[in-house]
């Protein structure tokens, strides 16, 4: 069924009885050409592009729980193309361009909203760094504008401009950045993939790989063995656990990141803002809640919940930037498990095992990457070669000394 305005009117007049489920609930088949482990945004997008771009149809996505229950349904929904380094920025710009056409492409309302992202600066050094980053963005086809204090004041008059320690000196504005309804991204890709024949198999956990003579022949699951021509692993925070089943140790630690939403307010925050002097970033959802977050908790975790010190730290950052927040009540807090890589950048690569490829290490920034990660992973699975925007995302970059370290922190995942 195609969604359209006429369809909505028709359904309204007939009691909304014609809407069916968005995707089937098939039994797993004994063999597929492509098996994707992990039904998050990335796994679903990979299956979608394998079918739509690369003409494949015998594809399954295996999801341990339900579609949208992982990080794709837990993130703070920000999309942007404002990276600095060469290995990264062309990829994220490719992703943002895909976001710009996504809803028409998969015929689903994902509420892509390019409301702009403003990274605030509070010192001269930060302003210089913002200028440099802005230039790198523009060189890669993205957009960037450096605002002075007055420019920021026009957009966000209620910020704490005269904070004695951290005065707002300006900001780097990325107008094409914004937010997307995260659940709808999972659902839209799932529906689009299903319509092209992909089997989305929920409640199906991968528990092992069948590897013979260095070749991966399929996946052991809680619903039996599923044979595969190519296996793609895309399980975000569970990356180390799943790849350990194939005997691999990854350059990764799993950490918990928390996020928060306030009670619903009238429209107050038109875009996304990030504080340059504390761990706090914020946007307002269309329902009115302020959606905000900060830094990871900083220790290995698979618990999907964090601790109070970070909540306090984020609240302090928020109130020091927007004093008016002091009266806002917090509605919910939650956590997700991040696949924090050793340089803060991802991996989309083949492994030493034939027929087994990997996509992960997205840290806290993989939502914005969803369309391009899906596209590039599909490209790798189909052709065996990296997509032109993802050539730097290799396993061996650590051995070769080609880290993509945006923050310059070194091999310390909790600092990225």
């Amino acid at each position: 069924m195609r969604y359209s305005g006429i369809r909505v009117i028709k359904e309204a007049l007939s009691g909304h009885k014609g809407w069916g489920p968005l995707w089937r609930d098939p039994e797993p088949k004994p063999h597929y050409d492509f098996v994707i482990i992990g039904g998050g945004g990335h796994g679903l997008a990979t299956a979608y592009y394998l079918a739509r771009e690369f003409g494949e149809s015998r594809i399954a996505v295996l999801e341990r729980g339900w579609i949208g229950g992982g990080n794709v349904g837990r993130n703070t929904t920000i999309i942007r193309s404002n990276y600095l380094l060469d290995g990264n920025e062309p990829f994220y710009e490719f992703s943002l361009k895909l976001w710009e056409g996504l809803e028409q492409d998969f015929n689903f309302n994902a509420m892509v909203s390019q409301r702009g992202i403003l990274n605030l600066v509070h010192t001269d050094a930060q302003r210089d760094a913002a200028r440099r980053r802005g230039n790198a963005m523009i060189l890669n086809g993205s957009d960037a504008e450096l605002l002075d204090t007055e420019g920021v004041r026009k957009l966000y008059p209620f910020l704490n401009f005269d904070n004695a320690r951290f005065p707002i000196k300006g900001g780097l504005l990325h107008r094409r950045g914004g937010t997307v309804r995260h659940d709808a991204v999972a659902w839209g890709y799932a529906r689009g993939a299903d319509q092209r024949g992909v089997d989305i198999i929920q409640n199906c956990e991968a528990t092992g790989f069948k590897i013979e003579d260095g070749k991966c022949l399929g996946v052991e699951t809680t619903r039996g063995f599923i044979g595969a021509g190519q296996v793609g692993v895309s399980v975000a925070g569970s990356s180390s656990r799943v790849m350990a089943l194939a005997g691999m140790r990854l350059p990764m630690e799993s950490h918990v990141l928390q996020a928060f939403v306030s009670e619903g307010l009238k429209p107050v925050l038109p875009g996304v803002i990030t504080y340059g002097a504390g761990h706090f970033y914020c946007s307002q959802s269309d329902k009115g809640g302020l959606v905000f977050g900060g830094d990871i908790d900083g220790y290995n975790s698979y618990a999907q919940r964090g601790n109070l010190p970070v909540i306090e730290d984020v609240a302090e950052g928020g109130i020091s930037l927007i004093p008016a927040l002091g009266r806002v009540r917090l509605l919910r807090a939650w956590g997700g498990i991040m696949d924090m890589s050793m340089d803060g950048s991802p991996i989309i690569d083949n492994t030493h095992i034939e027929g087994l490829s990997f996509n992960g290490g997205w840290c806290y920034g993989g939502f914005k990457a969803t369309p391009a990660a899906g596209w590039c992973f599909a490209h790798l699975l189909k052709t065996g070669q990296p997509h032109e925007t993802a050539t730097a995302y290799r396993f061996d970059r650590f051995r070769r000394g080609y880290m993509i370290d945006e923050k310059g922190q070194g091999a310390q995942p909790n600092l990225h």
Partner: protein
Amino acid sequence: MIINHPLLGPRDAQEFTYLGDASLIHRPDWQGEDASGQFHDYLYLRDNPAGQHRELWFHEVGDRSWLVVTRNTLTHEISNVELARDVARREGRGK
């Protein structure tokens, strides 16, 4: 989280900074064969288990000692805390 410091008693985890897997105590021999391969594994690869994890915490705003904390990464429950110095000696590092 509360870390039960062997010398100072229960302390808030906020007083500590976190380094990572306690296997970092075992720095490879820089003159050994395949030192560069070993340093690659030491520096970049991690077991990253879901469950019991032995890890290094530094009491930064306290007595500045290094601790080896055994903690369950699924529940955050801490079951054992030792001075890293004792662990390192027991495992044959240092004098």
